[in-house]
């Protein structure tokens, strides 16, 4: 049995557009997504909900068009890659219980973004959840929070979610924005580039306008935010921009401090990565078409650096064009002709990004000076204090630290702790974070029952 020309992991904006472009050029394409429905984070729920565009606006329309364009690809949801070899051979498991392997000619990783984990002691308190998770519930299940809900943190998504909650009839009890104030000089230096993408800027201004006129208490430039509560969340305390200590009672706190590339797969494969200072994250290195340091393995969208859904879609298209050229479907001239419009559009999108990065640096998620009792690794229950002790006892790198403390060894494979660990080691040893790096990723990418692995024999086609 021969494998598909292209296997795409992740059915968000990048994966969908790549699938549409590649299958449109005659490539055989398989598209996998671990969630029950395609769409990723930004277009979550597009395939499932009835025609209720009320809360989500024109994005849903665009998402549905993207999804419709992928009809030529073999699409599987509730299916995840639990093991990927460097030659692209991918072992997938479905929730139904099967295990199979796929040997594609090219692999495209389009695993999107994840919430930047916020290592504060209260993050494990009942009644605290990440804003992204709340937004997913809203998009996929039309589920809205009950009780007094306060949004805390920084980032465009936090403010967007506030307007989406308002549109769904939920009035937040407050927004506590911890974004540090930008200096006028920095603001002005990034503004011209941002103005080249007036649509995005206008959208941002629109969100702010909606929040101001809504009358929801909106505290900008808050510092020393603290979530208080014994058994569960009771209130949020903070110092406002004028230096006054304030308190808002809350049943639910929605935390957010920006998003990170979900680069677990490229890390597993050992693709070269670099540190992105502006976005305070690691990201895989790709060429202008999205090919990683591992020939034949491509990555596109937010998993290569945060660019947003529209940029992800364009990157997916560009990757598919180059893959089609490598596989002989189109020649170089044709690839470049088809790439010119998306590349121009991508440039506009990317020109806006430094403005956003400058506006919303991580503010509460930085772990270097996290309190000692902060649980950094939730799987293995390892605190910031235990990590500092292990560093003092000789663990000067994330892999040694992992073996000393089990931090990063649990079922999440370090998805939630690896940045915090790098920040703490950097702080303790005085080394730059890019020199520290993150621990190695091991198979499986997601936990899988041994029986399912043991039985794989009969089904594997080699």
């Amino acid at each position: 049995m021969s494998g598909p020309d292209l296997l795409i992991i992740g059915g968000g904006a990048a994966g969908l557009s790549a699938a549409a472009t590649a299958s449109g050029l005659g490539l055989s394409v398989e598209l996998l997504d671990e969630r029950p429905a395609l769409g990723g984070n930004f277009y979550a729920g597009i395939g499932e909900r009835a025609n209720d565009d009320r809360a989500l606006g024109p994005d849903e329309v665009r998402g549905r068009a993207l999804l419709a364009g992928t009809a030529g690809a073999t699409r599987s949801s509730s299916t995840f890659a639990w093991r990927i070899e460097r030659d692209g051979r991918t072992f997938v498991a479905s929730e139904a219980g099967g295990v199979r392997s796929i040997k594609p000619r090219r692999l495209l990783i389009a695993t999107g973004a994840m919430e930047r984990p916020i290592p504060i002691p209260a993050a494990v308190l009942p009644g605290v959840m990440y804003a992204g998770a709340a937004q997913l519930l809203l998009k996929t299940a039309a589920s809205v929070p009950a009780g007094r809900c306060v949004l805390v943190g920084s980032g465009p998504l936090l403010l967007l979610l506030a307007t989406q909650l308002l549109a769904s009839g939920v009035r937040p009890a407050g927004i506590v924005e911890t974004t540090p104030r930008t200096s006028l000089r920095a603001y002005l230096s990034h503004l011209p580039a941002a103005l080249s993408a007036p649509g995005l800027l206008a959208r941002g201004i629109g969100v702010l306008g909606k929040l101001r006129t809504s009358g929801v208490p909106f505290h900008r430039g808050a510092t020393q935010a603290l979530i208080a509560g014994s058994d569960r969340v009771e209130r949020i305390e903070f110092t406002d921009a004028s230096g006054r200590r304030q308190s808002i009672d809350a049943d639910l706190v929605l935390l957010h401090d920006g998003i990170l590339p979900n680069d677990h797969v490229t890390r597993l494969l050992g693709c070269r990565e670099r540190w992105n200072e502006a976005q305070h994250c690691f990201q895989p290195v790709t060429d202008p078409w999205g090919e990683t340091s591992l020939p034949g393995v491509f990555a596109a969208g937010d998993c290569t650096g945060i660019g947003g859904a529209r940029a992800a879609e364009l990157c997916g298209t560009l990757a598919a064009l180059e893959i089609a050229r490598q596989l002989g479907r189109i020649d170089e001239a044709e690839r470049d002709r088809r790439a010119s419009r998306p590349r121009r559009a991508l440039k506009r999108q990317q020109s806006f990004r430094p403005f956003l990065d400058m506006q919303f640096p991580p503010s509460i998620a930085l772990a270097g000076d996290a309190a000692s009792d902060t649980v950094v690794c939730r799987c293995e229950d390892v605190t910031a204090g235990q990590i500092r002790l292990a560093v003092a006892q000789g663990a000067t790198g994330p892999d040694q630290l992992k073996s000393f403390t089990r931090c990063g060894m649990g079922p999440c494979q370090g998805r939630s702790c690896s940045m915090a660990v790098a920040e703490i080691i950097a702080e303790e040893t005085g080394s730059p974070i890019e020199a520290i790096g993150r621990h190695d990723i091991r198979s499986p990418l997601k936990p899988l029952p041994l029986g399912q692995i043991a039985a794989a024999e009969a089904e594997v086609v080699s």
Partner: protein
Amino acid sequence: MSARSRKGVEFAVIGGGLVGAAVAYGLIRKGRQVALLDEGDSAFRASRGNFGLVWAQGKGDKLEAYAPWARQGAALWADFASELTAATEVEVELEQNGGFVFCLTEDALRSRADTMERLCKRSGLDYDVMTPSQIARYMPGVSDNFAGATFSREDGHANPLKLLRALHAAISATEGALRRGMPIERIEPVSGGYRLISAATEIACENVILAAGLGNGKLAESLGITLPIKPMRGQILVTERYEKIMTVPSENVRQTQDGTFLLGGSWEDVGYDVSTTFEVTRDIAALAVRYFPFLENVRLVRSWSALRILAPDNAPIYHELAPGAFLVTCHSGVSLAAIHADRVAGWLAAGTLPAEAAPFSLDRFTPATSPEYALG
């Protein structure tokens, strides 16, 4: 001691894994001045891939002197563990309630029992042959879908990661004894000792101990000696946590104190390749499920590979390569940790290898040196 004037450090130990750390810990306890030179985060680190058995049974199959040595190594472990824990507050999770080696077929079990019988004559290590229903007393949930196992009362297991951490913690309690980020590239003899050279720095020492695992090959070359060691890959699977039901480990399946199951036992001659493979992952999982059917529903959380450092007879090598330059290498860094910290560190502190060490010297790999053979 450190005030004594000398050319550099008294003992430099190259390699911060279990072998080097155990020797360095032992030397420090014997009052010696030590610098343990650890390569850094990217080292191959067989220590991190160790399965964690504290094991005597079956050792010495190809070098019988190893059988009593391994047995003594296991016997020293309890005191070693309690001293280490007392010094560092790191619990190394030692359990010595016995251990099993499973055999699928009657033939394999018979052959295994014959080997155990032969080694018992040399080491005195007693053993039993057990059927699956007898094994179930120690390892509940075991199937009856295999022939049986050999059991030794003196075997057990510990947590190799905690052991390494405890050793590092104990060593770093002495100022300057643990030096990190020191990938030594070559050794140069100088008057009164050695100079150890890395890209960034040089270290002078009176005595040097090569305990760098596979890295010893290159280091010994710099002294003009070729070592007969090679990597042998082992893959290990780790499951999610489960109720603690097993009191005794086996060579293929063991349950740690926090409840996860470790599954292992692969031997692959694939050079310096530390990747894991689907086929071996599947085979390890399938064998574990055959022995313990309930594992079918327990989820695999992590897998990894590490390289055993193997001599042709699978036994350790203790050898004085040049005056004051000693080689200590083995693939049983956990099993032999106690005896390395105790006896081997004692030899090194004395500056000479005794007759007891002779069977483990490199000379055993150099045939054609016996007079009659050479003359004939």
